[in-house]
């Protein structure tokens, strides 16, 4: 009987122990690494209007599709390009390009054209080992044509490489724009 009493007490005590108060609501997570926005600014060397290509996906991997702004190039014109990556889930927006450039050895932008698009990319800026990084570049618009221009950022690629096919690594940004040369 003594044992029963003891057991009952233990069961009751543990029930009390379990029934504790509600926790406070958690704090929202600051998503530090998300890239929501890629903006490519292309300044022509002939003094005409600057072209801006942008893809913006404010809900990250949420259901909304990225919003894309595109532009067209003038034939024979050379453009100085600069890529800016932003995380706009935080306020103020965080500039991810800075991190990419700080860790230049572990990153590289690749440029791919599709369709008939006649565009040449050259003069990519370099990482601290002298291999391509590509956050800055020169774009030369060739003959009149249309097609796609794709920017791919690889994290931890094999460097040096001959292009996307042997770069390996993980894709951090994959942004395609429909453009034309007029």
């Amino acid at each position: 009987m003594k044992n029963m009493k003891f057991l009952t007490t233990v069961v009751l005590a543990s029930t009390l122990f379990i029934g504790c108060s509600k926790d406070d609501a958690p704090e929202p997570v600051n998503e530090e690494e998300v890239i929501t926005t890629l903006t490519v600014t292309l300044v022509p060397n002939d003094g005409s209007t600057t072209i801006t290509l942008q893809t913006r996906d404010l809900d990250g991997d949420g259901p909304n599709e990225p919003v894309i702004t595109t532009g067209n190039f003038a034939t024979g014109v050379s453009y100085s390009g600069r890529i800016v990556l932003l995380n706009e889930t935080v306020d103020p927006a965080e500039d991810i390009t800075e991190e990419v450039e700080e860790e230049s050895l572990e990153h590289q932008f690749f440029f791919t054209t599709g369709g008939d698009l006649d565009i040449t990319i050259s003069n990519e800026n370099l990482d601290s080992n002298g291999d391509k990084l590509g956050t800055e570049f020169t774009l030369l618009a060739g003959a009149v044509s249309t097609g796609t221009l794709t920017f791919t950022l690889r994290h931890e690629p094999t460097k040096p490489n001959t292009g996307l096919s042997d770069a390996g690594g993980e894709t951090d940004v994959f942004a395609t724009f429909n453009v034309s040369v007029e």
Partner: protein
Amino acid sequence: MRNYALWILLFSSITSMSQNCDHSLSGIVSDNHDGQLLTGVTLIIAGTEQAVQTGLDGTYSFSNLCNDTYYIQVSHPYCLTKGFTVNVSGDTTKSFKLEHHIEELNQITLEGKAYGDKTKTLLESTLNTDELERFSSGSVGDALKSLSGVSSLSTGNTVVKPMINGLHSSRVVIINNGVRMEDQEWGAEHAPNIDINTVSNLTVIKGAGALQYSGDAVGGVIIAEASKVPVKDSLYGKTLMTATSNGRGLSLSSQLTKSDQNGWYSTLQGTLKRFGDFETPDYVLSNTGVFERNASLKVGFNRFDYGFEGYYSIFKNEIGILAASHLGGAEDLIRALESPLPLTINDFSYTIDAPKQDVTHHLATVKGYKKFDDFGTLSLQYDFQRNNRLEYDIRRGDDKEKPSVDLELDTHTVLLDLESSLTDEIDLKFGLMTGYQNNFASDTGVRRLIPDYEKYDLGLYIIADYQLSDQWLLEAGARYEYSYMDVFKFYRTSFWESRNYDQLFPEIVIEDLENQILTNPELSFKNGSGTLGASYAFGESSKLFFNYSIASRAPNASELFSEGLHHSASRIELGDLSFKSEIGHKVSLTFQSDSDTFRFNINPYINTISDFIIIEPVEVQKTLRGTFQVWEYRQTNAQLLGIDVDASYEFAQNYRLNTQFSLVKGKDQTLDAPLIGMPPVNIRNEIVYQNPEFNHIRLSLQSAYHFKQNNYPNNNFEVFMPETKTYKLVDVSTPPDAYHLLNFSSSIDLNINQKSKFTVGFTITNLLDTSYRNYLNRLRYFADDLGRNFLLNLKINY
């Protein structure tokens, strides 16, 4: 104790001298623990030295006794010898109970059952210490795979999740040392957090019939038990070491037990495993190393009628995830699928980099039992578990060293059980369970995959079995479970609205932030489960089991709340807040025949599950990182049909042929399509030579043939390739080809002295160095499975 018995013997020889007598004394001798009848027990009457032995039915009989008081010494090789005083008056019956133990020292194996049945009408498949020791360097999942009907869902070769008859994760309940494991078992890449070296008996029940443990084991129950400690003065232990060529690593495990004949005992145990990158026949699997560290301590007190035990264990495992499997979107997946070699192959290394998992599991329990002569055994247990799961991805900047997932799951449980024999024929088990669980997700700079929640559980069960006749046994049970979940979950506003949750659940919103809202879902589930079964014994050694079980499982946190990119799966996973419990009905039939030379069992089953929760691809979604496949949880009606066969035949003295065959077909009845991820048919044959007279030498050659899975749903999808302006098919469905593996294993005992034994074992897995991929390995898209592996096992018992 023994001296005391001797004194009685000496003393009694004086008292009971010559009289004219013709009475008898008879009765049975049984095991105090489970009532099992003991054969071969020697009973000696002190003084006259008249001795008898119990027969197969545990009975004994003395004749020509007088009306007098006798002192009888009762002894058995595996029990502590006891002395009893008996008053004989006429023809007397008297039954004795002995404390029947496993003799741990020098590995004497017992015929008969040392561990009680978990259910009476479902077949239990068990791995004993000898079999488990062969997997000392592996995991619980590796060992379980050797049983028929058990396969595994794995991530590489180090994260191995057991799968019973085609079901896994939350549908398989794991009981470790009497505690239900709460180690975030919902995830497909979360392996059980148990050190195989703490287990001396591993049992699989392919069904939900074991209601004393849970009512939601739609797939089955796995029970890991530690060895029992004898009540005698002893100090013993063992050390196991395994060195492997593949992974170039070492596993070391040691345990020491001190027991005392007054009932006290303690066991200290520890394991250390370190492996580098594993290798396929052709290349290194980069970043697949393992670093596992475990320790446990047990202190207890064990008597005939009461006992208690305190136990603590820590399990810490750091596991590298194949570097080549870390991907961005579908464009990366296409590259991986098209490449014959993994995209990342580095030189062999012991370093474990991101992506990796680092899991720590603490388990502490205190339990006690007391036997009451009139109503049975009452036991009470409290346990606490803390599971801390860290998952590291390849990150940028300041976050490099920071985990992407940091979840801490605390669970407290109190169990009260009563086991009672109402009559000689009817046994009753009754119990009560209360539990509290708290999940806390730390801020890692990545959205929480599993939200913060608190969960309260209450369970109640009753199981009765009735021995109708020598042949028939009936079993029935019921369990009720109530669970309440109080959750804090952030939803993306875009998701919340796209799912119409703003119309369906406006009342749970507690805060509206800019891009997301904080909600407080409060969910409760009431689940009933039951079992009904019969077993029929016939012939020399045959048995037929029939069992019907109904199991109800509440949806888990992942199924309810997933919302976003699951990095390790490279896909977007979406749960559903409105899910209800899934209910499984399993009918299983088993025929078992168990003679010395031929053992056979065949077990067909049907498992019909309503509101079965599955995850499957529904669409593709564009993000800034590329295209991702969206996998959504859905409830459907499913049916699994299957059969497991085991046979073992001693075709010549010391030679045995073992065969296993498992088949399961899963069907989504709503869509009339095959279920995803069902294990393919497999057949295993093994020839074993074992000679107990020649140092227990054991040689075995095993052939395992895994067929190609031909029943699978087509989940392929297309991705637009901007370079060519065409769509490309991504084949994520087609299972890999069939494969055949040969394994060799051997061991021999070398006795150092009477108290110590040294065992040397040598094993080769994948003897022919076959390249293969396994349908149930989540990394099959990226790399081959393991190549040949040489293992050297050394064991010392002392």
